[in-house]
């Protein structure tokens, strides 16, 4: 009790004297910064940090003598940090001071190893991490050849030596232990890791002192420290693999399978893809194709055709049968395909190589009605076509892009495709006159077997001069294609009117085509000032084309050549263009004005067969033209822009059109040539307006394009009723003055309720006037089309998306020779869709489409409702499994309808295709399937 009283007294009297002295609220903190030898450090940076999380609370700069002071700061714990160039940053823990003045005295800074500072920080520009005594290197700053070991890398690091045996010394001391990610690697030999690991696997190299094993065990510091090294490996995400596989079985013997696998690391990507199905997927979709090509997917836009439009003399090979799904809606297909793709990218060099194989076996039956108008009336043919086509294709593509140095860059690419085509078709054509009286029936059987090869290649070199804005570019390309085929035809023409016996024809054609193109372009850009530039360009191309079609009648003398149908021609187009564009670019305004001189030389020699006498005069045409160009784009400050351009183009006639003899592959349809054809000349103007609201993401765009022809190539028709044969149509190309085309379209997307309901609207008008002679009477066909679409997208929650829309389309076609035959083709549609995650990871998806096609003139009407629905569930660890039950075309109504009206005829085609079936599928995805309904992607 006494003791307690004493203690109370002690506390009562003493405590008030101690406590306020221990914790003044405010304190003045001062000190002097010097180096370890005692020399003052002038103007050091002194920071006060929160000791818990290093947050900067206050800072100051010392004076010339290294003295610093923080006046009247809260009195609490700080981490005082001093930094000065060339010294290891110093950290001092500051505790609350009992006095209002807290002088920390002299703070000594250790000089930073000069070699580390110079070599790492200055030369290698690498971040040097200093954590107490730990020094950390960033290996990516020290270049070693690919395939080097860690040991090779260490030899390059400043302050580290590696002897011939692989022993490592750092800062003059032996490294006794090497850790990998902080753990011992294969026992105690420090060389095991450095000799076996690849240099490219490292993200960090750290060197620090560690207490000896003795200290670790006893817990008593024996004062001995050993130097150790830690090798940090790169993050795992930089390399990896993913893939997915799907198998599906359905009713109507439907089967489908798809698989893909991708492996990648920081520099390389390797991927495989394969598919097979009988559900009309003739290739892979965009999404899968993009993942298959990886970083090589966006490298197809290299342009070596310099100068304004038309400089390219673009040579495009048919891309049908490529890896992408290009099913046109007709018939039934069986498809197989697969490929491998490799990409390499180390920023300086990008390589892409891929191989793809695909095949499609297509069968379909199509019914077409064609109404042909001539001045005397209308005749009609009703066709039934049955086709069985098998196609296979091997394609190889490769591309190399290399940055030689900062001012030189080269791209080399080559694509090769080998194609094989085997087509059998049988066609029945029933002709009637304008009184619906039958004329004749033509039966045709065709058997075509073709093998072809395509090669495209190009090299583009770019150089930047030292003068800003001055550049030079050169390109060269070689393209070739060739095909050989047998085209066997069998005709039977039943002439109904005269009750003549039916007539048989046979034609066996041997067809060979060879085309080679060599082209080159040069471009030189010279800045005139900061805003003005001149681009000068030269384009050259030479295209050689050899076509050989030898037709024989196997029934005549064991295969006598039918001279009238055989042709051999050899021709050449030489193209030269030299021009300049002056450009202005400043503050959102871009203007270009240019002029080019263009020369086209055409040479063609025609004969019945190789080495045989010439047919008619050889074609020797030479066209010279001045080609003007103008363009303007202007951006306003509020995300609005307008653009305008004017172009003039001159395109030479094709050699098929120039040939002096007719091509007859069907006795009722004859195609003549015209060696006197002039090139097509056209002026075109484009106008555009765009607006984007970054706050609501609403946008509006309007575009108009107009073409006016000076000279057009048109196809005149002569339709004659020939006794015992029937109606024969002869088409001949000719030049016609006049004619125009226009198209105008707009689009807009806008939110109605932010984040919930959005709408899209777009539509257009288009039209053209095409003059042509039909039976020597001039017919002007005016086509005007209008179309529009409106759609709504409603996402009330992140579990449900509803969408719907309508579209209308009308084509109005007017014929000057027979205005009573004017056509109005109507195709309207409406759709609705739903995606609903009604139970977590379980989705129901359905869409309904209604297409109405009508032509009142011909009385055609076909309405096609299509309803698809499916339910799917994602399950398993990491959502890797998915099963789906889908019903396609529940109403069993799918057909393919195409309506077309042009020149002097209108056609309506209806083809059968895959209708109702049900399918159950199971998929596995290494990355896991996405849950939730996806509103939008990144694009």
């Amino acid at each position, binding site marked *: 009790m006494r003791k307690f009283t004493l203690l109370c007294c002690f506390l009562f009297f003493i405590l008030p004297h101690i406590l306020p002295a221990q914790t003044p609220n405010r304190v003045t903190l001062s000190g002097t910064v010097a180096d370890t030898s005692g020399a003052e450090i002038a103007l050091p*940076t002194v*920071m006060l*940090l929160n000791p818990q999380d*290093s*947050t*900067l609370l206050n800072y100051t*700069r010392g004076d010339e003598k290294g003295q610093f002071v923080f006046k009247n700061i809260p009195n609490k714990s700080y981490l005082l*940090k001093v*930094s000065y*160039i060339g010294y290891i*940053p110093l950290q001092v823990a500051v505790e609350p001071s009992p006095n209002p003045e807290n002088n920390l005295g002299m703070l000594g800074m250790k000089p*930073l190893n000069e070699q580390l500072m110079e070599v790492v*920080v*200055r030369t290698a*520009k690498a*971040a*040097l*991490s200093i954590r107490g005594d730990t020094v950390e290197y960033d290996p990516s700053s020290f270049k070693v050849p690919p395939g080097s070991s860690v040991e090779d890398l260490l030899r390059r690091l400043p302050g580290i030596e590696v002897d011939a045996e692989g022993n490592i010394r750092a800062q003059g001391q032996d490294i006794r232990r090497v850790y990998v990610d902080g753990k011992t690697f294969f026992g105690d030999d420090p060389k095991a890791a450095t000799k076996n690991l690849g240099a490219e696997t490292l993200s960090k190299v750290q060197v620090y002192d560690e207490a000896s094993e003795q200290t670790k065990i006893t817990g008593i510091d024996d004062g001995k420290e050993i130097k150790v090294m830690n090798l940090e490996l790169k993050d795992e995400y930089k390399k990896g693999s*993913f893939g997915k596989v799907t198998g599906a079985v359905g009713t109507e013997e439907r089967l489908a399978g798809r698989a893909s696998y991708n492996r990648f690391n920081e520099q390389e*990507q390797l991927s495989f893809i394969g598919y097979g199905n009988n559900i009309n997927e003739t290739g892979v979709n965009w999404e899968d194709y993009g*993942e298959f090509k*990886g*970083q090589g*997917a*966006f490298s197809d836009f290299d342009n070596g055709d310099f100068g304004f439009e038309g400089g390219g003399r673009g040579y495009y090979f048919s891309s049908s049968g490529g890896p992408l799904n290009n099913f046109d809606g007709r018939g039934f297909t069986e498809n197989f395909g697969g490929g491998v793709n490799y990409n390499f*990218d180390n*920023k300086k060099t990008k390589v892409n190589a891929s191989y793809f194989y695909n095949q499609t076996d297509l069968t379909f039956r199509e019914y077409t009605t064609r109404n042909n108008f001539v001045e005397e009336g209308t005749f009609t043919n009703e066709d039934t076509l049955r086709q069985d086509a098998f196609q296979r294709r091997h394609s190889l593509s490769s591309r190399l892009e290399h940055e030689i140095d900062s001012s030189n860059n080269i791209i080399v690419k080559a694509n090769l495709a080998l194609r094989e085509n085997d087509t059998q078709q049988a066609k029945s054509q029933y002709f009637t006159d304008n009184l619906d009286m039958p004329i004749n029936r033509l039966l045709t059987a065709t058997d075509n077997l073709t093998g072809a090869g395509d090669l495209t290649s190009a090299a583009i070199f770019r150089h*930047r001069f030292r003068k800003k*804005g001055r*550049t030079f570019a050169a390109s060269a390309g070689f393209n070739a294609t060739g095909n050989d085929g047998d085209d066997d035809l069998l005709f039977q023409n039943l002439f109904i009117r005269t009750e003549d016996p039916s007539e048989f024809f046979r034609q066996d054609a041997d067809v060979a085509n060879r085309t080679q193109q060599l082209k080159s372009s040069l471009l030189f*850009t010279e800045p005139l000032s*900061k*805003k003005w*530039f001149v*681009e000068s360009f030269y384009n050259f191309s030479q295209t050689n084309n050899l076509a050989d079609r030898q037709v024989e009648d196997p029934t005549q003398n064991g295969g006598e050549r039918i001279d009238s149908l055989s042709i051999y021609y050899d021709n050449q187009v030489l193209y030269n263009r030299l021009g300049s564009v002056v*450009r202005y*670019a*400043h*503050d*959102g*305004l*871009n203007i270009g004005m240019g002029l080019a001189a263009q020369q086209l030389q055409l040479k063609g020699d025609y004969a019945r067969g190789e080495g045989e006498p010439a047919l008619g005069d050889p074609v020797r045409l030479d066209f010279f033209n001045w080609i003007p160009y103008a363009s303007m784009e202007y*951006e*306003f*400050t509020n*995300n609005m822009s307008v653009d305008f351009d004017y172009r003039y183009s001159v395109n030479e006639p094709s050699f098929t059109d120039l040939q002096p003899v007719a091509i007859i592959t069907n006795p009722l349809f004859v195609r003549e040539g015209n060696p006197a054809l002039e090139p097509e000349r056209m002026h075109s103007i484009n106008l555009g307006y765009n607006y984007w*609201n*970054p*706050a609501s*993401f609403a946008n509006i765009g309007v575009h108009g394009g107009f073409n006016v022809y000076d000279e057009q190539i048109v196809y005149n028709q002569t339709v004659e009723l020939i006794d015992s044969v029937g109606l024969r149509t002869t088409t001949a190309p000719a030049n016609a003055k006049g004619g125009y085309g226009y198209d105008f379209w707009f689009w807009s997307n806008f939110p109605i309720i*932010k984040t919930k309901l959005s709408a899209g609207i777009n539509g257009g008008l288009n039209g053209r006037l095409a003059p042509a002679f039909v039976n020597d009477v001039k017919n002007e066909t005016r086509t005007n089309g209008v179309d529009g679409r409106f759609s709504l997208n409603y996402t009330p929650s992140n579990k449900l998306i509803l969408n719907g829309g309508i579209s209308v389309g009308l084509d109005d076609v007017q014929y000057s020779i027979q205005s009573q035959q004017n056509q109005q083709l109507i195709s309207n549609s409406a759709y609705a869709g739903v995606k609903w995650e009604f139970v977590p990871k379980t989705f129901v998806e359905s869409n309904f489409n209604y297409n109405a096609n009508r032509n009142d003139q011909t009385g055609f009407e076909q309405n096609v409702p299509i309803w698809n629905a499916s339910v799917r569930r994602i399950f398993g660890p990491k959502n890797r499994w998915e099963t789906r039950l889908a019903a396609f075309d529940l109403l069993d109504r799918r057909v393919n309808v195409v309506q077309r009206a042009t020149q002097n005829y209108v056609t309506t085609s209806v083809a059968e295709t895959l209708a109702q079936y049900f399918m159950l599928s199971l998929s596995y995805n290494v*990355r*896991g*399937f*996405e849950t939730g309904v*996806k*509103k*939008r*992607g*990144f694009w």
Partner: protein
Amino acid sequence: MKLPLLFLSLLLLALPTLAQELPADGQAGHVRFLITHNWTKKMASLDYMSEQSRQKAQYMWGSRSEWKEYMEMYFSPDASLYFLSEESPDPDLETYSWKKDAYFIRRDFAGARQSDLLTLTGKTYLVDDSLRCPAWKILNDLKEVAGHVCMSASWVDTLKGQTMLAWFALDIPSSAGPERLCGLPGMILEIDINNGALVIAADKIDFYPVDAGKLALPSKPKGKKISEAEYQSILAKYIAEKRENQEPWFWGLRY
């Protein structure tokens, strides 16, 4: 004979005062910053987009998604002005000009104020308020940027979801920095946002006296005056909306 002598001595007397009028070395001048955008890394930083779509963007675009632009900054001991450069680092873009949104960031260190003239979601604002600088954490790394040894500091912008790594010069005693960043004991010469999604690094620094005119906001365009809190709330609202729509917010906002 006396007159030139007098003149000379006057000149000699005036020299030290002239020299004092000029800011000491490293106090004023001009900095050009090179910005490197990496779109796939920007996408990777959007936690509300699905993991699959972010990985896919990385796989497909990878290193092809980079593009570069220049920014400039004038600074003095009292103030700094950061703005878009007329120059372009990409020679392919030299012959084409885009309209640029207003973006002038002014920091008045003497008066502790900030006034930023900038276009935000299609509207131009003047964000005028007392100076706010991030609460930096000071780290331990050293690196050279544009010839200056820098120390690192970090800050997390919770609104935009950005982790910033700043490198500030130990020998440029200015608390200025690129974009809307400030408040370190030395000038910020490099900023790395979200591990390379956006890197802003000084590539040319010149020291010379800068007159006040170069540090002033342009008189045009005019912007609606708002406070820092209002600016933050416009950003927050926009980002929340894009998050709801599962769209990247940086299509419409400066990253």
